[in-house]
């Protein structure tokens, strides 16, 4: 299988990239790591005459700390994220997602922006972006906007990015004390998988009352997009963090919050059952991490 022919553009600044995107119109595709795009081009699932590579733009692969947040450039690779201390310390669920994606070689190329723009319901970093309340940073030649990741996905392979916009990065608020988060994925084998179900959870509790004061759960591979699990989250609020309430949240997520389908990778019935198990397990682990963090 051969790659189709296309014009290759390599701007060196976001400004130039935006200019190109505007002038080339909707047909032009942005190339980050290429681990999805090049495969789609080869298989002719996507056609384009113009490919704009973002790898020459240094600003897009930076991880920077602000006062209460971390900005992650959209072209930051999985390997880069996973080995950056600020990510390891503050966003373990995101690191876990990065570590589970593809293979070593793919993780060296695949970017977090690409993972979001590919908008696969099974994307490995996406549940983490949802539970960390990440904002997507979008830019056109004239304006910038920030969109909560909860509003970012519009369907399988689709996002709210406009044709003249570029996703430049994400803003992740640094979670406060007494909080923890975790991510689990389930596939047929232990590596190079496309997830059957993937779940991330975030928990925060009040150290005085020992009650849960914030809970966020995100489910992957069980709906048209990665989704939050609002009913399960609400069962947790004000509860004492222990097995019974984690189990109940899992049951709620399984029954009320997910809408999986059958495909050749697995049945809806199994995915749904696993939402319960994985939700319970991520919550349990998130709480353990929250507790160990404050010791």
């Amino acid at each position, binding site marked *: *299988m*051969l790659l189709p022919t296309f014009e290759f553009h390599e701007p060196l600044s976001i400004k130039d990239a935006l200019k190109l995107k505007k002038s080339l119109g909707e047909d032009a595709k942005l190339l980050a790591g290429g681990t999805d795009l090049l495969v789609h081009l080869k298989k002719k699932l996507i056609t384009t005459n113009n490919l704009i590579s973002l790898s020459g733009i240094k600003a897009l692969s930076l991880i920077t700390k602000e006062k209460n947040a971390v900005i992650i450039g959209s072209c930051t690779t999985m390997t880069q994220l996973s080995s950056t201390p600020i990510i390891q310390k503050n966003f373990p669920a995101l690191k876990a997602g990065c570590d589970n994606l593809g*293979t070593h070689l793919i993780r060296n190329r695949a970017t977090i922006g690409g993972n979001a723009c590919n908008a696969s319901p099974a994307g490995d970093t996406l549940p983490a972006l949802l539970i960390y309340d990440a904002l997507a940073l979008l830019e056109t030649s004239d304006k910038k906007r920030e969109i909560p990741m909860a509003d970012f996905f519009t369907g399988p392979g689709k996002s709210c990015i406009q044709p003249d916009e570029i996703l430049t990065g994400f803003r992740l608020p640094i979670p406060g004390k007494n909080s923890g988060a975790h991510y689990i994925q*389930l596939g*047929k*084998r*232990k*590596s*190079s*998988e*496309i997830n*059957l179900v993937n779940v991330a959870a975030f928990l925060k509790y009040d150290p005085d009352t020992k009650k849960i004061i914030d809970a966020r759960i995100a489910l992957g591979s069980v709906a048209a997009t990665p989704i939050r699990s609002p009913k399960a989250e609400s069962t947790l609020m004000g509860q004492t963090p222990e097995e019974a309430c984690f189990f109940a949240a899992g049951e709620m997520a399984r029954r009320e919050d997910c809408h999986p389908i059958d495909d*050749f*990778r*697995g*049945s809806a019935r*199994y995915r749904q*059952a*696993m939402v319960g*198990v*994985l939700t319970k397990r991520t919550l349990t682990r998130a709480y353990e991490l929250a507790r160990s963090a404050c010791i």
Partner: protein
Amino acid sequence: MNKFDVISTRAHRIDTPDKATGQAMFTDDLCRPGQLYGVLLQSPHPHARILSIDTSKAVNLPGVKSVITHEQAGYIKYGVSPARYDETVFAIDKVRYVGDEIAAVAAVSLDIALKALSLIKVKYELLPAVFTVEDATKKGAPQLHENSPGNLCAEVHQEFGDVAAALKTCDIIKTSTMKNKRQDGAFIEMQGCLAEFDNRGLLTLVSSTQVPHYVQRTVAMVLGMDVGKVRVKKPYVGAGFGIKAAACPMELACCILARETKKPVKMNFTREQVFMYSRARHQFTHTITTGAKKDGTLMAIKHECCLDGGAYTSFGIATVYYTGSLLGGPYKIANMSYDGKRVYNNKPACGAQRGHGAVIARALFEQQMDMIAEEIGMDPMELRIKNMMDTGDTTCNDLNMSSFGMSECIEAVRIGSNWDKKKGNMPRGKGIGMACGFFVSGAGYPIYRSDTYHGTVIIKLTEDGGTALVYTASAEIGQGSDTAFAMIAAEALGIPLDNVRLASGDTDMGVDLGAYSSRQTLMTGHAVKQAADHAKTQVLEVLAEQLLVPLEKLDIKKGFIEFAGDTPDFSALRTRYIKEHRGWIDNPDSKKLTFKEASRIAFLEKGSIVGTGKYKPHNLGGKFKGAAVGTSPAYGCSAQVAEVTVDMETGQVTIDNITDAHDCGKAINLTAVEGQMEGSVSMGIGEAMHEEVIFNDKGQVLNNDLAEYKIVTSVDMPRVKTIVVESCEPNGPYGAKEVGEGAIMPTIPAILNAVYNATGVRINELPLTPERVFFAIQDYKAKMAK
């Protein structure tokens, strides 16, 4: 006990430097001046009549040099077994699966060739298609082949002893069924070939094949050429596992394009085409009934099997026989019946893959052994040893076990896995299981009926005396055969491995049936040893004459001449040698006469020293129909223990450890034997746990890449403890026999028995995806609750 100098060591592979540095040339690395690129037009429909093929637009595209269809390729039918030739290079009247070949294009670039493909207009009349055994065998089902009513490709009915009578005497009778899924070989190197005619009409086909010899014959037959005008060469090959063990339509199309264009033509399969072409392990559905006495004595096996064959026979006729015949051992069973059939349908043809035909039958039967053991309260290992054949025994279907280290393998894994301590003492969710298996060490007969030698070898000593050149047409495809043969040649000649050079994989070098049925170490190895002995004798004969020493007092060891008794004065020979090498600073001054001197003297006396060797098995097997399939001069044995952890909430199975003992007769290269054992385990785990070619309802493969077709990754691979058992096979060179395929036999049932041990659930369908295991556990729980 013989002491060896070269074999039975961990010598480095002779191809390691090439492969480690990336210098090894595979077919796609080769390039000829003026080379064209060929591509295949393959059917998008699973079943359709071809009304017309219009190639005019493609022919006229600039850069296109040839477009061929059945009009150029002809109507000669070919296949694997001459009894079942049911393929033509290109479809003539109809296509039978998505991927069936219709035409081919050669052009100056791959780009142009692909463009030309899109310009070929084929008019089809779509026909109803069938994709399962059930649908294909229904009354009124669409028929694939005119001469195969009911889409029945082949059927086998055999009975040895009296199964019905034996079952009546049994205390325990177990009947169960099992189904696997269609596999893909998932070799690293996709099939590729490069064909070229020279000015005298010699066709040279370089191909990524396991069997240059069979490809040579098929090409000659289909192109209407003398076999002597076809040369097939195999460069380095990135594995085959059985899928590359026959001529493929791309090789034939490539040769025809080369003939039409008078230019070198190169063609390659994409990974998608590898899946489309298939020819890997069938989907088998087995039902086996095993009867035993309450003391554990096995009495009878009643075996039924149906093979989901795909559109053509390929290896299928052999597969359906192997499926039955290899249940004849390794246990003493006097009564066995087998009813097997292979059914056509509109999917790609299945063929042979590691453990040809026998893997799933073994997987089911070895579970029944455990069921019987459990019912009578006997340790599964003890039950197996109780029923084990002895060395020299012959099965009820006439397979002779000339060496048989099976019980030793069981003992080895019992100790190696700490079985006695673990079995019965593992917590819920953890399990241990074992199984046995055996496999042929080379098919007893060639695929076409012939008295041909299965392998011939030439060893020439270089005229300077320093080196032995080994020429064999055998196929190194990654398994390490070149190294094994160089080691055998060095051992037999009595010289260091460094002094042996080897060339292989070229039909000009002789006859060798190739790398399939785990035949080369035993068969080609024999021929190598014979050729080396022949060359060595000629050298020693000259020495005996020159030194007036009886021939039987002479030998060569480690590159030096050994004399039994007193060493005669050989100074005249040394002087003669040194005189030829004035100015050399490294002339021999050892106390012993060197091989180099001796072989130089032999050349001076007799001219080039050439040793020849050949091998074919003695007459094997019984007289009944199909008796030939399953025969072999020797059988390799293996026993394995698998330890697993099952996540009872998700159904995920983790394989924690595999302990694997294999009787390979004699390890020529210990490291290579262990490599084959680990490779077999990995392939067995893949089939047990993840692998499955999945089709949609249009006959297209949904997971036609290695992202979605899930072979084992390094993270899934457990620790494997390999234990080599050596039973010294009388029919093998230095006692050696197979390891390449037998080692896969116990893997799947050992895992299934371990999963049962962990969960209490028997799962009768592969692969053991988390989903399948999860629902099996749920169903079991529901049943227990009632």
